[in-house]
C-alpha cells in the first residue's frame, strides 16, 4: 500500500476520482457509493467541493487559489486544509494521483 502518511509538501501530480464511485444526494448530504451500491462515506460541503475538482486536470495549487478567493482565508491556511482533505480522500481510496510531466 502506498504510504501517504506524510503531507503533500511536494507536488504529487493531479488528483482524480477513483473510477466506479458514484455520488448521490441522501437527506441533504452527499454520499459516495461503490458501483455495487455499497456505501463508502458521506462528504460535507467542503469535501464535496474538493471531490468535484478531482478531475485529473486540476492541480491542488489551483484549488488553493480558488479557496483563498472564495473564502477569504490566508494561503497557508487554505493549503493546509486542502492538503489534509486530499490526504483523507487518498487514504480512503477515493482519489488517485496522476503525475504531471
Amino acid at each position, binding site marked *: 500500500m502506498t504510504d501517504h502518511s506524510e503531507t503533500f509538501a511536494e507536488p504529487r501530480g493531479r488528483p482524480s476520482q477513483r473510477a466506479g464511485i458514484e455520488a448521490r444526494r441522501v437527506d441533504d448530504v452527499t454520499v459516495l457509493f461503490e458501483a455495487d451500491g455499497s456505501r463508502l462515506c458521506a462528504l460535507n460541503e467542503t469535501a464535496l467541493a474538493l471531490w468535484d*475538482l478531482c478531475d485529473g486536470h486540476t492541480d491542488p495549487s*489551483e484549488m488553493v487559489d*480558488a479557496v483563498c*478567493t*472564495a473564502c*477569504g*482565508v490566508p494561503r497557508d491556511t487554505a493549503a493546509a486544509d486542502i492538503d489534509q482533505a486530499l490526504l483523507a480522500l487518498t487514504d480512503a481510496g477515493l482519489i488517485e494521483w496522476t503525475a504531471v510531466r
Partner: protein
Amino acid sequence: MTDTVSCRVVVAHPWRLAREALEVAIASAGHQVVAVAHDEASLVEATQGEHPDVVLADEHFGGEGAPALWETIRVEHGSRLLVLAREADQGALLRVIEAGSDGFLTNDLDLAQLSRAVASVMAGETYIPPGMLGLLLRELIVRRRNEDGVLDRFSRVSRREREILELMVAGASHQRMAEVLFLSPHTVRTHVQKVIEKLGVHSRTEAVAMVVEYDLLNRFGSSAPS
C-alpha cells in the same frame, strides 16, 4: 437552551416589505436590527452611526460602485457583509465574492440558513449557500486559467506593438497611428495584425476588448509615445 451570540445587524434593501420581513427574521434568529437602510446613502449613514456587527444588503446596492461601498462597510467600519441576491445565480455569487462580500444569500433561504449565515460571518468565516461552493471554486479556477492564458499571450507583445495596442484602445485609425508613431500605414497594419495574432483573437475589436477586460495596459505598463 441554545446560546446564540446576538449580533447587531443593519438591514439594507430598497423594498420596504423586504426590509420589514428581514427585520422579523433576524430578530427571530436572536439578533438585533439596529438600523434599516433603503439606499446607499442611508446605508453608509447607518453603518457609520451604529457600527453594526453585520450588514445584510441587497445585491444591487451600490451598483457599479458596490465594491467601493462594501469596502467602506467592511474595512472602515469593521462590519461583516452578507449580500442577499434575488436569484441563486452563479454569476452573481462570483461577483459578490470577488467584490469582497463575506457571504452570499439566495432568495430561497429559510430562517435556519439565515441564522447559520450570520453566525458564520460573525465567526470570521465566509458563508456560501449549500451546493454552490463547488461551482464557485470551479468557476474561479476556469477564470484564473483563462487569465493566465491571456497574460502569457500578452507577454509576447513587443513594446512597439503595445504602443499600437494602446492607440487601438483609444480608437485611433491606422492613419492616426501612423502619424503618432511616425510609421507608414502599411507598417501600422502589419503591427496591428501581429498584435491580433499574438493575443490569439480574430479582430481589432476583440483585441481591444481583451485589453480592457483584463486591464492589461494599466497592469503591465503602457508604452505611450512621447
